């Protein structure tokens, strides 16, 4: 079959790889931040997971922030980062 040379419509994707924070071996005594994306029940899931991390791994205390709406970027990221050792957040529904 004849071949045709065409240009890909995908273009280029920007950006490289960013390093993640080094993990510590244990969560004991680490401050847990929750960033609620404001979807229904997101706080319930994230909150319960945080409670379980306190119960099972000795983490804590827990602090909660909420995005102004699921469809808006969070405006409190710097504050969350400064006040937490680990952060739980959610994506989509």
């Amino acid at each position, binding site marked *: 079959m004849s071949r045709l*040379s065409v240009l890909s419509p995908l273009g280029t*994707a920007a950006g490289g*790889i960013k390093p993640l924070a080094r993990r510590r071996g244990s969560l004991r005594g680490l401050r847990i931040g929750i960033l609620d994306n404001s979807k229904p029940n997101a706080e319930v899931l994230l909150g319960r997971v945080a409670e379980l991390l306190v119960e099972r791994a000795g983490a804590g205390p827990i602090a909660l922030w909420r995005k102004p709406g699921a*469809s808006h970027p969070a405006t409190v990221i710097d504050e969350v980062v400064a006040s937490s050792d*680990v952060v739980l957040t959610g994506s*989509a529904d």
Partner: protein
Amino acid sequence: MLGTDAFAGLAEAAAASLGMPHLQLAAVAHPIGGIDPKLVRAKAETVVDRVLEALTRDPSPPLAASVATVCAVAAPGDLDAFQDFAVAEGWSDGLPVLPPTEERVGRILGRLAGDRTEVIATLVPRQGVATLEAIAVNAALAGALPEHLPVVVAAIRALADPRFNLNAIQTTTHPCTPLLIVNGPIAARLGINAGANALGQGHRANAVIGRAVRLTLQNVGGARPGREDRATLGHPGKYSYCVAEHEAASPWAPLHVERGFRAAESCVTVCGAEAPHNVNDHGSTTAEALLFAIAGTAATTGSNNIYLGGEPLVVLGPEHAQTFATGGWSKADVKRAIWERARVRLDRFSPENRERFAVIDPARFGDRLLADEVALCASPDDLMVIVAGGPGKHSAIIPTFGATRSVTVRIEE
């Protein structure tokens, strides 16, 4: 990062686009919302070990991200086989596409060929780099002609304006897509339909401009239906959604002039829009009377605008517009009157939704009586009004995604 299995692909794409493909996702069974909170708490138990591991063990370093460039690809020369190829590669919307050969793309770029690497926008969620050339390749697939490219490029520029909130529009479960509204002399010059069937088929300029924008969003922006594009149902405007304002049939200043452009400038406005909701009114002969059907179509409990605000769009058919004008009404009068009438009593919302939005938007939903009414958006100025269509007694309400603002930009030719 926590999520549900149904949305895992979107979460992974979002992390990768932020340069963190190695960020770990802990997924529970879909859904989280719309079910009893007790069930949600039980789902937390299923995922806590995964969260613990993700937070205490360093992930493997990722491979270097594979970077796609506007590169040449060998494709089948046979036209039918090329369709199969485009579908398999995920380049298509399902309708026939035309092969984006170097020669066809070059013709579409025309005198812009020398600037083909110019970056018009970076499109989320993929952080895809929309160069002039990448846009032209999608225009070629869509069937666009060289004269359509400036409108497509202007629309892509507008979509990348932060006020538009493209990431949400690209990835939401809500059925929305950019509606392009073209104003100014370019509409007539390119034959962009503003008359009969203006939101339907039959005019090449509308068809291929709207589709070129959609394919750019899908291919460069990485909003693949059912993957990053999470629309529950979507709507058929996602094939193509482009209209010109019928400025000659409008009694008022056109949209771009309202926004500070000169009438002789050509502009495109993008809105994150639902499909049109029809307003049938053959009976009313006065402005006051016509408000009933328009307000009674706009004020629903299902559109995003009533919950989240934003800018619902009213497309007045020329005969309905004339009824307002005959009554001496300005466009501002029309907006205010619709806003005052298009309201929903609080007792028409479910108790859960009343409770939810009393927290999210206390000014409109909190601490009020059940007989109080909520307006369809925050202020009369947020309503958009344009005139389009042919003869007949129909208009349309086009709700928007809510958490988005329409953006108007000049078309550079």
